[in-house]
């Protein structure tokens, strides 16, 4: 078991290195000069481009930039990157503590602090969506499987498919502009910090959470339904029935246990992916989470922020994969640790 965990961690580490280097190659390959987007109108002033380039370290080759970035993650670094520039203008020095993910000259702020500021909003949204999609998705899937082929099954699966077919931003905008604003049927989707007012926090998250959940519900209904149907046809269930076990025990202790185990993996991975922010939903409801930050950074070409977010999200996904694999080996004794 320990050997498995260590092997899994090691391969995750290798993946992390390859992934981050690939990201650097993709964004700093020289097709577009990233400095041009750091100064806006001031770029016309002679010397500004060169100064910003030296400040952000873009004048180094990609591998050197990458090495400096990795060093910054572990021990922090100072901006401007260029030592000569630091000496000539000490008042501009910005300290970027470890884990340093870069510095955005546009926002005059370190990427790490920007991410930390936005993360709670995305996490709240992910939790709200997760609760709804597990409740409706898995619950709906179980009901559909129990009524296989009859009207509750058709109703649940059909409704989920129809909701899935409409674009997420259309559903979100419809809920926002009509259900919340025009008809005032639900609380206004405005984010309040949990520590400030937990009730307002939950109310504000209802519509965005639902929008995000609707995207996942259809898939989870179908999966749950097929897993439950498959598990119900196993031989050991016939045995359980034959030996006179009561229906409820058969359903919850035998069928559900084997049917829902694989769902844990999927749900955990989807949840991890959401922690990094839901781009569409956050844009629609104007939630200032990681997804919104990512879109804004990407469209205004704030490269340090974009790269920081891409790396953070991919790291979360890699970590989640490792955790899920290890957990799965603990939950399901049939998994061979090969």
């Amino acid at each position, binding site marked *: 078991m320990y050997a498995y965990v260590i092997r899994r961690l090691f391969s995750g580490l290798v*993946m992390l290195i390859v992934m981050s280097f690939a990201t650097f190659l993709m*964004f700093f390959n020289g097709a577009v000069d990233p400095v041009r987007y750091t100064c806006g109108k001031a770029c016309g002033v002679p010397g500004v481009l060169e100064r910003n380039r030296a400040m952000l370290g873009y004048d180094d080759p990609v591998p050197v930039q990458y090495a400096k970035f990795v060093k910054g993650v572990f021990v922090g670094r100072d901006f401007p990157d260029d030592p000569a520039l630091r000496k000539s203008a000490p008042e501009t020095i910005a300290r970027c503590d470890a884990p340093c993910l870069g510095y955005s000259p546009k926002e005059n702020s370190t990427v790490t602090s920007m991410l930390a500021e936005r993360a709670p909003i995305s996490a709240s949204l992910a939790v709200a969506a997760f609760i709804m999609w597990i409740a409706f998705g898995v619950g709906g899937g179980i009901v559909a499987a129990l009524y296989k082929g009859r009207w509750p099954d058709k109703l649940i699966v059909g409704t989920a498919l129809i909701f899935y077919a409409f674009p997420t931003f*259309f559903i979100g905008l419809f809920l926002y502009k009509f259900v919340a604003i025009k008809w005032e049927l639900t609380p206004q989707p405005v984010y309040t910090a949990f520590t400030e007012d937990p009730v307002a926090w939950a109310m504000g998250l209802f519509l965005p959470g639902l929008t995000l959940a609707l995207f996942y519900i259809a898939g989870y209904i179908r999966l749950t339904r097929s897993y439950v149907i498959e598990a119900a046809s196993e031989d050991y269930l016939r045995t359980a029935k034959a030996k006179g076990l009561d229906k409820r025990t058969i359903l919850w202790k035998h069928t559900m246990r084997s049917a829902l185990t694989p769902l844990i993996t999927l749900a955990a991975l989807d949840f991890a992916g959401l922690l990094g922010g839901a781009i569409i939903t956050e844009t629609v409801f104007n939630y200032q989470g990681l997804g919104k930050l990512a879109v804004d950074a990407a*469209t205004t*070409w704030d490269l340090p922020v974009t790269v920081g977010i891409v790396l953070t999200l991919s790291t979360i996904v890699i970590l989640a994969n490792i955790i899920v694999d290890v957990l799965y080996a603990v939950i399901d004794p049939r998994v061979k640790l090969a």
Partner: protein
Amino acid sequence: MSIQPPAEDLSTDVVATAAEEVGATKIEGRTPWQLVRMRLRRDKTTMFILVVVLFGLIMGITAPILSRLGVLDPFSGNRELIDVTGGGLPLGRFGGVSWAHPLGVVPGTGQDVLSRLVLGVTYSLGIAVSATLLAIGLGTFVGVVAGYSRGWLDFWLSRLIDLTLTFPQTLMLIALSPIVVRLLTDRFGVPEGDIANGMYVVGVLGLFGWPIFARVIRSQVLSIREREFIEAARSLGANNRRIYAKELLPNLWAPILIYSTLLMPQFISAEAALSYLGVGIKPPTPTLGNVLRDSIQYAESDFIFFFFPALFIAILVLSLNLLGDGLRDALDPKADR
């Protein structure tokens, strides 16, 4: 295309001749294709969905011709149908619905909504089909090579699949757009505008869309390569190329067909989402996503214009998804939904 493995061909033949000799009722052999068609024809829902999808395809193919002929008029504005003084909303009820403009006109410009949507089907289907071909092609190639070669090549290709899956796809699509579009226009001489943007969307959707399908194909190949007919072919001296093309690929057409049908709706939704975020083919070119995006600012005042682009997308996505499910039932009866 021969679908059945040679070994089984032989055995059914032998059984059939043996049955004839003893005078038993003749067993009629059916090819897998015939079985599939039989199952499909019995499935009324899927047949109906197939008609809807074919209708959409024909719509997509004929729309550019029709707009060239002037039957559809997606671009020219009709300012006389617009309330110019009152915020640019269409005159008349329900967003300016009339016989000439069955789904009303676009607020502000007065373009015909139906024409834009029909031409939008062309663009959206075009993007979805091209991205699907790219993703399925790459996925099949990597999956077959990984599954058949095993060993170190399989190991590295599988890691490549893992790597591609770790990137946050939507974010990469937005973030890479300026770089890649610039690369396409400057280094490869692709004309700027719709062509470069369209190529970008197709390329990146395809490049991030293949890994899951490659996994499916790889696991299929891993099980097929242990079957007797592969061993038979190899012992008869068939080289790798022949085994790939004549023995492996014909046995993979079921997952290829099913996944192609299921990838397309994903790409149609993705195109719409990207248009909403301002990436990809830019307005005024009417992809379905662009038409829907144009309508957002009028959502409260002109609901018809807001709803119909979304409905077009939903119908396409829903019918392609259902067609994929139907095909899965027909091609792989063992797969329980």
